[in-house]
């Protein structure tokens, strides 16, 4: 099998997997980074969202070959930064219930705040509509993004 060098959370990893393997499974099972979740496998629910060169991407629908050489940030990479404003806002607004979709929500919010330092509700809805939450935490996600924007513009 081919080898790929993946830069995940600011470190290079050499992985030996089939070229069409979705990044999601490489992160979870090859690198043991299980914070990135499987929800649908079709890019419909956004639970698998990670940042690739700063943009939110669906890792379930991205072949590992296409991620090679790019900078990938997962929820574990965000957690390494102490007091990340988005994580802090999520904590203060008590957003999570089951928590399964929240890594995808947080990474999507980080990507949004990088584009727009102070998004409106409409801009939040547009940017976040790709990430499903079955517990119904959406109102708190809106509040947490506003709070993160206040805390410092949010981007990582």
């Amino acid at each position, binding site marked *: 099998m081919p080898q790929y060098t993946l830069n995940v959370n600011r470190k290079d990893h050499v992985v030996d997997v089939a070229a069409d393997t979705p990044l999601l499974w490489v992160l979870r099972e090859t690198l043991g980074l299980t914070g990135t979740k499987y929800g649908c496998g079709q890019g419909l629910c956004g639970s698998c969202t990670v940042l690739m060169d700063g943009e939110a991407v669906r890792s379930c629908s991205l072949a590992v070959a296409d991620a090679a050489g790019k900078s990938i940030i997962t929820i574990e990479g965000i957690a390494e930064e102490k007091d990340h404003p988005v994580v802090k806002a999520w904590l203060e607004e008590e957003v*999570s*219930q089951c928590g399964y979709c929240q890594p995808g929500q947080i990474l999507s919010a980080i990507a949004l705040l990088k584009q727009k330092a102070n998004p409106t509700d409409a801009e939040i*809805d547009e940017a976040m509509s790709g990430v499903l939450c079955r517990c119904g935490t959406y109102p708190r996600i809106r509040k947490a993004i506003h709070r993160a924007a206040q805390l410092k513009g949010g981007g990582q």
Partner: protein
Amino acid sequence: MSDRLRINRREFLQVLGAGSAGLTLGVFRLAPALAQDGSQVFKPNEFLSIDSDGTVTLWVARSEMGQGARTTVPMMVAEQLEADWEKIRIMPAVAHPSKYGSMSTGGSTTVRRGWEPLCKAGAAAREMLISAAAQIWAVDRAGCKAENGMVIHVPSGRKLGYGELAATAANLPVPAEVKLKDPKDYKIVGKQKMRLDTPEKLTGKAVFGFDFMLPGLAIAVIARPPVLGGKVKRWDDQAAGAIQGVKQVIEVSHGLAVVADSTWAALQGREKLVVEWDEGENAKLDSAAIRQYFIEKSKEPGKSARSEGDVAAALQTAVKRIEAQYEVPFISHSPMEPMNCVADVRSDRVEIWAPTQNPQSVQSMASELTGVAMEQVFVNTTLMGGGFGRRLMADYAEEAVELSKLLQAPVKVVWTREDDLQHGYFRPGSFHVLEGAVDAQNQPVVWKHRIAAPSISGQLYPQQPPRGNPDLVDGAAQLPYRISNLLVDYVMANTALPITWLRSVYNSANAFVNESFLDELAHAAGQDPLAFRLSLLPPDHRLRGVLQLAAEKAGWSEKLPRGKGRGIACHACFGSYAAHVAEVTVTRDGRLTLDRFLCAIDCGQAVHPEGIRQQMEGGVIFSLSVAMREAITVQNGGVVQQNFDTYEPLRIHEIPARIEVYIAENNLPPGGVGEPGVPPVAPALCNAIFAACGVRVRRLPVSENDLRWS
């Protein structure tokens, strides 16, 4: 005893702080008992322990699926224990048939059933720690008080931490009677507390079932029959076996398992399998036929669930009669984390890691399936990405146990989203025939509700006929309004489509019917829907308070322009009382917007107010999602919906612009919270749609109704 068991046992004892310096207390059996090894601790079938360093360990026997069990259970114990909240440590309890009581996490039971035993367990430990301090100081215990993890001798100001008192307290008798704290002295219950599980869920460290791994763990997906209940006839696994990482293809009860060293390899292998299926009996199962079957059943003579007055006579003499038919579809739980389970079956021992709402049923299933004694079956409940009732079933755990037994190796069975939608157990659909009447004084005099629906218990446990009314009348037979001639009856209409409990169970369908038809009756009587409800509720009914609270906050009496409407609905279930007000806009071309949703809840003593707000907000959104557009349909014996494109829960841009939650304050015994917020949502929404545009939605989901008006 295997090596792993020995390790587990050792870790367990370390956690317990066993030896000479630990105090543990049972929840349900408040009598002192020595550990079997003779050390001075209570047996490890226990609920709380205090280590010599003052750490308080609490075993949580109810599953955490997002509803906050791992926070509310500690809050109840810690309050009475006067514990230092910073020193609380949580341990998910390993399944046991009896020592924790029921571990089943359904029916909104964690707080309402746990309240008394958990409060008493905390209070008994507190009293023992006070006695221990009094004994050490040789003072009258009346001069001692417990506070924030220590006992204080008030006259002298001396203090001892719980850790320092644990060894002495462990030798004291457990008091038979304990006094619970006065609610006015609460420091934890009813106060704002951050959920204990939040931090790990924001860093990727939280371990859900899907995330659990063991060294060398095999991963399996199962090729499932396209027709429900079908069987494998023959197959060709040559192409599947050629996928790198696929180890084996093996027939199991539910289909063909593809076993691999990674999830991706297993999925690829399943894609390449060529399977010929024996379709079995359900090849003609079809939603239109099921609906027709319900309609036919609704015409058969019904069995009475509740009968008052004389409905037939009253219908004859009534001034105005109305009739309506209501129906709801089958729906899916669709938790974000699909089903999965890890099982390690050995000849004398089974260990399971499952995202389950019912670890005890997983334990008994595994014991039965493997022949391994119950006490050698260890079920660890992982965190779960939503449950909503789906994980009360043990089917997916059964697959892992069956496969691990066959492979003689640990294995993780994972389901894809497609597996989850197509091979789930659903909220049953139902068909309802309603008749009502008002008299010359515009008072309602008849309520007649006929239900044709499958029974969950009837389908899951066909050999156990219900005592009393079957489940399918829940929420219908308990209509809270005083109407002199009333008949609620039913015809059980079971089908081959698998069903199970889903958040609020039959209350979601029956409250939709009750509260929508009551609205119709109010309009028939020319009365305001809120005033009409209040006039029919008994004077001391707790629904009155929440109706008034929701209506007041909504500005119920303010008029709205045509095209905008406000609807109200209420329902009592699982020990709590909820009322919702919906505000919507319907354009002339039939486009619906959700403007505002208010929810008032009386759940008795509010244990964790922020958690209650979460559950109410979430309940509103979950229920709106279901009401707006969710439906499971069947064609040629298989579920039509495949993934979140054809079964799409509401997204962030579709929820109401404002959702407000109001909690009634009182110190009555706590009621449920996870489910009671769900049932009034659909009728409040549909009553608001009627108020906005005059279209009465009697068939869910709303998306299948034409809302155009002129």
